[in-house]
């Protein structure tokens, strides 16, 4: 398996506070990874850096087979390169229907003129149909997404991410505020997604991480504290001290 994303020696400072401190991280194609850590460990900042929202002060971020640098690319350009992101709070376009949300996310030309003259093709509609089945929103296609429940919005957002067909999925606390049944569905969606692409999940809930059954990276004060299987890192004394023990 080749490396898909390689972050090395990245640091970023906000007003003198080192949010990310010489962080290195790598993930391969079709790999699932969970990132855990206490509040303020830099988990979300890490995602901001990879997606181009925050520019690091130093370090390298290399992407894909051609090893292109993501530093200096716009958020939209990075998204088109194949990095999809799900926010902590479900962010779907509430004023628009589930179908419109999914159609917008489908991997198609993004330029204004192409979009202006775009009319959904047969395969686009089929794909929307198929995706909405996977995320359990087939009956809600013509409902405004603002009417959906919290869990349904989370799934719609995951569906939109899948529609983008990214090579790397960054998912921030997908299970927050979900019922146990909804969590199970979410786990299944993510595990399925990780079969064909890299998935990085930020999560607080250890039970959820255990169900994902993947390699875990522990962040602390902007740097990697430990990495390995969940059992391995939970046995680590440092991890227990800064995170689990509290």
């Amino acid at each position: 398996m080749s490396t898909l994303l390689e972050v090395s020696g990245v640091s970023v400072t906000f007003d003198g506070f080192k949010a990310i401190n010489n962080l290195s991280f790598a993930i391969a194609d079709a790999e699932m990874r969970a990132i855990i850590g206490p509040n303020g460990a830099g988990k979300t900042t890490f995602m901001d850096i990879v997606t181009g929202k925050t520019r690091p002060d130093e370090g390298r971020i290399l992407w894909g087979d051609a090893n292109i640098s993501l530093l200096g690319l716009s958020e939209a350009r990075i998204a088109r390169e194949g990095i999809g992101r799900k926010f902590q709070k479900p962010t779907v376009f509430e004023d628009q229907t589930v179908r419109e949300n999914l159609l917008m996310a489908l991997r198609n030309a993004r330029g204004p003129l192409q979009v202006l003259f775009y009319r959904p093709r047969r395969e686009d509609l089929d794909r929307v149909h198929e995706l909405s089945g996977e995320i359990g929103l087939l009956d809600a296609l013509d409902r405004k997404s603002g009417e959906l429940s919290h869990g349904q919005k989370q799934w719609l957002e995951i569906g939109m991410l899948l529609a983008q067909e990214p090579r790397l999925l960054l998912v921030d606390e997908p299970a927050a505020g979900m019922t146990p049944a909804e969590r199970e569905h979410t786990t299944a969606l993510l595990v399925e997604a990780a079969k064909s692409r890299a998935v990085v999940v930020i999560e607080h809930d250890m039970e959820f991480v255990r169900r994902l059954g993947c390699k875990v990276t522990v962040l602390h004060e902007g740097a990697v504290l430990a990495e390995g299987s969940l059992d391995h890192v939970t046995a680590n004394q440092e991890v227990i001290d800064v995170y689990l023990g509290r």
Partner: protein
Amino acid sequence: MSQGVLAKNPSVLTFLAVLGLFTLGVTLMSEWAGTEIVSTSLVKTLGKTLCLALVAVAMDLVWGYTGILSLGHFAFFGLGGYMIGMWLMYERTHGIVVSSLAEAPIPPTEAEVVAAIGNQIFGVVGSSEFPPIWAFADSLALQLVLVVLVPGILAFVFGWLAFRSRVTGVYLSILTQAMTLALALYLFQNDSGLRGNNGLSGLQNLPGLDHVPQSSISIWFFWASAGALALGYVLSAWIVSGKFGSVIRGIRDNEARVRFLGYPVETYKLFVFTVTAMVAGIAGALYYPQAGIINPAEIAPIASIYLAVWVAIGGRGRLYGAVIGAFFVSLVSSWFTGGQAPDVNLGLYTIKWVDWWLVLLGLSFVAVTLLAPKGIGGLVDLWTGRLAPDRHGADLGPDAGSLREAEAEQ
């Protein structure tokens, strides 16, 4: 293409039918048709109002749909008026100069004619030279191109600078106000080349058509304005109906999210800003020949703020709302300020509407914004029974499903 749009937006057909009936009705009642129920000056007022409705539709596209509160679109409207005004004034003065020089013993040369025109036009600002910007004033075709091109280029350059630096929200509104103020101040100068605060006048007289009465010319412009509004409305409905509409409404509601979907948000904003500026230019080019005069006061910052008020009162985010707002507010405004509204005698103080109209307008704007954000257009929702999901940003827990079903039933 347009068939799909019409099928998806039944309101477009309704709008076109209402506009068609309105145009037909005014035409039949006009002086031109011989019935004289509607005076020529009222035909001109209604024709001008149609142009205001067109620029309001453009404003709705940029504000109501894309979420850019531009307080400078009247600058583009005015520029369109100036561009057509240059040709009207040049050609008409040309006719006058040629006929007066025809009595001279020696036939005038082309250079003498041009010099005489320059003298006529620029005498009021103490000059007789044609500034370079009048280079194409003798060509109707070129000035018509400039009607679209000049506002388009200004909007493109301004938008490129502003959007690229990610200026958004109230800061962008202030920048657009600064733009329109700067343009108005520049045009107020006598050496701006557009006759300073005199502006361009006599635009209601079409060159070479001196024998045609104003009753006919007014109805021609009325038809042209109605046609332009119909075209602009259908074009806007087409733009907002498909995926492009989804993307710009997405930009309005959550710009960052659209960016993470891979859409170049700045390019979209620039596209909408520039296209609507061009539409505003066309609306202005139809408005000012009906008004007869254009001067820099027309593009003062307050004009663009009025435009936003119309769209807010009419109901932003729906195209017919913009049209309703422009018609309602501008006609009510001319009723109040025209001295027709009866004074209200409170005993100690008499409310004269000419003075108090702006206060009333300001209060209604605040009231609409606070109490009825959907504006007058929101009344249509009451009638059609459409219910908007009223939980923007509120994350209901998974157990609230039953309540949601009840809402959907309604």
